């Protein structure tokens, strides 16, 4: 029964070979994942290409096309990332959850070993606000592609959150996934 509050928060994504739960509520996602890493993209001049700046600190490398972007659109700290036409990055070690705060609209593609394992729903932020979009996957992914499916060509997001289950927490997530399935059948 304690799983029910968690279950009611999730939305299963539209396409998957991975089982992924989508969150649009930041607090719920943070509570569900527990621990995570954060990149806020501050400390860089506006327009700086981001590639390997976070490789050592966070184990993540960005493909060409992502650059820092200073704007009042990013209500957290005024600084975020601009991808043109999209933002593509890879993790040195596979992750199982990821989230961003974004403006406009955004879609996640998750890859593992070069294979697309999940495409998320496209989410929209209210005008002149940032919105939260987070995923928790039951299988690992090592590459992420962020883009706009509708009127694309650019994508904007600010804080990037990601992580993996702590040792010992895997059972909890397996149980949660099991609970989700049972509820869907009922």
């Amino acid at each position, binding site marked *: 029964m304690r799983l029910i509050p968690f279950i009611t928060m999730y939305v299963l994504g539209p396409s998957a070979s991975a089982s992924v739960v989508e969150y649009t509520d930041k607090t719920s996602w943070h509570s569900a994942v527990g621990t995570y890493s954060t990149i806020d993209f501050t400390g860089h001049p506006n327009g700086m290409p981001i590639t390997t700046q976070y490789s050592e600190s966070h184990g993540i490398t960005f493909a060409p096309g992502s650059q820092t972007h200073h704007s009042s659109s990013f209500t957290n700290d005024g600084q975020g990332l601009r991808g043109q036409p999209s933002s593509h990055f890879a993790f040195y070690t596979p992750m199982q959850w990821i989230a961003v705060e974004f403006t406009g609209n955004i879609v996640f593609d998750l890859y593992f070993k070069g294979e697309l394992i999940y495409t998320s729903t496209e989410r929209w932020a209210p005008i002149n606000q940032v919105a939260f979009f987070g995923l928790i996957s039951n299988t690992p992914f090592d590459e992420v592609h962020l883009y706009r499916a*509708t009127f694309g060509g650019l994508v904007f997001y600010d804080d990037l959150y990601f992580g993996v289950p702590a040792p010992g927490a895997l059972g909890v997530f397996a149980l949660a996934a099991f609970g989700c399935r049972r509820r869907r059948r009922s």
Partner: protein
Amino acid sequence: MNSSGHVIGSSSHNFGLGGQCKAHAAFWPSVGGTPVPLPPDDRETSGYAIAAPFTNGELHAVGVDWEQNVAMLWRRVDTSSLWEPPILSDVNVGGNIILCGQEGWERLYRAYDINDHGWIVGAGQLDADGFFAHRGFVMIPSTYCTADLNGDFIVDVLDLLILLSAWGLYTTTHCFGSPDINNSDVVDVQDLLILLGAWGPCPGMGIEVMTLNEQLTAAGLTGQQWNDYQSIMTGSSSQATKDNWTCWIMNYLMQCKNCPLCPGRDPFAN
């Protein structure tokens, strides 16, 4: 660029915004002049078109906010004022615009062009019973004269003929050009009265238009005959009678008295 030489576009010029240098919607008061950034100052935006939709010197510019992925409308009241913050980012802000075609617009992505009557064309997302579809839109200021059914900026006999030819028609299309001017779902005498009340050039248009009396005279009708027609239409006569009167008055207004189109006798014949 509009007919006054005002230019709208995008500039990567550093507008002194803390060293930021990004594509930004900008206004040039004249070709080769110094660009003025359009608000908000620190957003990545583009301007697509500019127009002077009124005669009071007001300027309107349209474009896009790339960060929010929404259409924009900027407004400058007069030459001494600054550009106001964009107002198109929310659909139908203040009820001052009309979105044509269908209801249920979720978001307007782009505003591509604007004419000197303030009409804006663009693209947006429509919620059609839960199915989201991308559609073009035309946005018309609600101050625009809705009785101008043929879009020539004059309410005259041509609009009257459009209305009469649709007499009794049931329609749920509530947009520019619909003869159901008052959105009651039926074209009836209320629409006729609105049209007659709006007779003449649309606001801001310095166009000479024949008055209704002049139009009636040219059609060989008297004011009394026109009053008789309105009495019939608002009275309790049968639908067949009303249809016959409407048919004949259209013939007169089209100056086609002998066209054998109407089912009954000519009620205006002496």
